[in-house]
């Protein structure tokens, strides 16, 4: 077994090994410095792309959250309308579906926060690397202008090891972010597919929104009843005696002509 030396020291050694190998390969450090600087700029590009990728994923989740929020609000409204119409069964169905939407929402919210944190971390990593790359460029130019190859070797060792460590850290951060966005993309894609296939649509806003259809029918019936009551009241006030004389006949007539009632009432109201 390896003698215990601590996690911190062992991780550091792994990071150092990489830098030392590169340093050993340097014949004229002044040329290697330019090459290293190029690699640093490439990594900077990569970490910036990583930030953009995470942001794209986050925005996609944000859109899905908004859509689900709207669905949830609609179901809530439908539940209230159903209850107001005395249809507890419909209200129960709407609330059950709303709970399903809420579960999806909670899951997406967690993912959203995790992506936000990842984006923040990568942005800071990018800023730290930028600062070190700038410092390295200045150091490199001074060394190239002032020192011989042999002197340059000793002068650059520390800076090279330092920036190599930062690059290793940033590289790991990019890797982690890539893994996470890949997972998110897969899940977001699955939800998009569900929405596209109508499986989520059907619950609340699709053409076969049965809760809304039932509510619409209830609404229409209520409207007709209300208008009938209104007409009866009007007739009663203008000719109370006639109504008294034929109570059964008038209600029969109203019940058999509900379809025409809606179209004939409006003009009579305008008069």
């Amino acid at each position, binding site marked *: 077994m390896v003698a215990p030396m*601590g996690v911190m020291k062992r991780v*550091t050694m792994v990071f150092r090994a990489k830098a030392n190998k590169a340093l050993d390969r340097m014949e004229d450090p002044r040329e290697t410095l330019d090459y290293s600087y190029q690699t640093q700029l490439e990594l900077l590009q990569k970490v910036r792309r990583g930030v953009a990728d995470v942001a794209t994923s986050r925005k996609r989740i944000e859109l899905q959250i908004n859509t689900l929020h709207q669905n949830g609000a609609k179901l809530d409204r439908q539940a209230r309308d159903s209850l107001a119409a005395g249809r507890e069964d419909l209200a129960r169905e709407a609330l059950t579906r709303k709970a399903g939407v809420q579960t999806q929402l909670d899951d997406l919210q967690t993912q959203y926060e995790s992506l936000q944190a990842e984006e923040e971390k990568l942005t800071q990593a990018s800023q730290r690397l930028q600062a070190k790359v700038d410092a390295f460029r200045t150091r490199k130019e001074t060394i190239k202008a002032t020192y011989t190859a042999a002197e340059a070797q000793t002068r650059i060792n520390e800076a090279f090891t330092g920036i190599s460590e930062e690059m290793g850290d940033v590289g790991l951060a990019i890797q982690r972010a890539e893994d996470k966005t890949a997972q998110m993309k897969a899940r977001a894609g699955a939800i998009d597919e569900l929405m596209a296939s109508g499986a989520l649509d059907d619950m609340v806003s699709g053409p076969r929104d049965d809760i809304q259809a039932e509510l619409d029918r209830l609404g229409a019936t209520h409207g007709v009843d209300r208008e009938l009551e209104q007409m009866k009241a009007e007739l009663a006030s203008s000719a109370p005696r006639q109504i008294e004389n034929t109570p059964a006949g008038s209600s029969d007539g109203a019940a058999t002509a509900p379809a025409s009632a809606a179209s004939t009432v409006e003009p009579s109201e305008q008069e």
Partner: protein
Amino acid sequence: MIVRILGEGQLEVPDSAVAELNQLDATLEAAVERSDEAAFRPALAALLAKVRDVGSPTEADDLRPSELIIPQPDATMAEVRKLLTDEGLIPG
């Protein structure tokens, strides 16, 4: 002495804190060696808390390498194992 927390950056830690950090690190290492998940998480948290408590962040353009490197706070035990052995994982 400079200590790096992976994913977060470097901190300057007074040498007087080293003994205590090593002790916390030994606990962490033992947990990793035993694959003791229950002990691993609090050990890593305790080490990080101590470093944050006694350390102060270095300037961003400071090019000095770290003497000690600590895994990221949300690292799993598998990730820590990889950090201890896998040299291929570090780019550049």
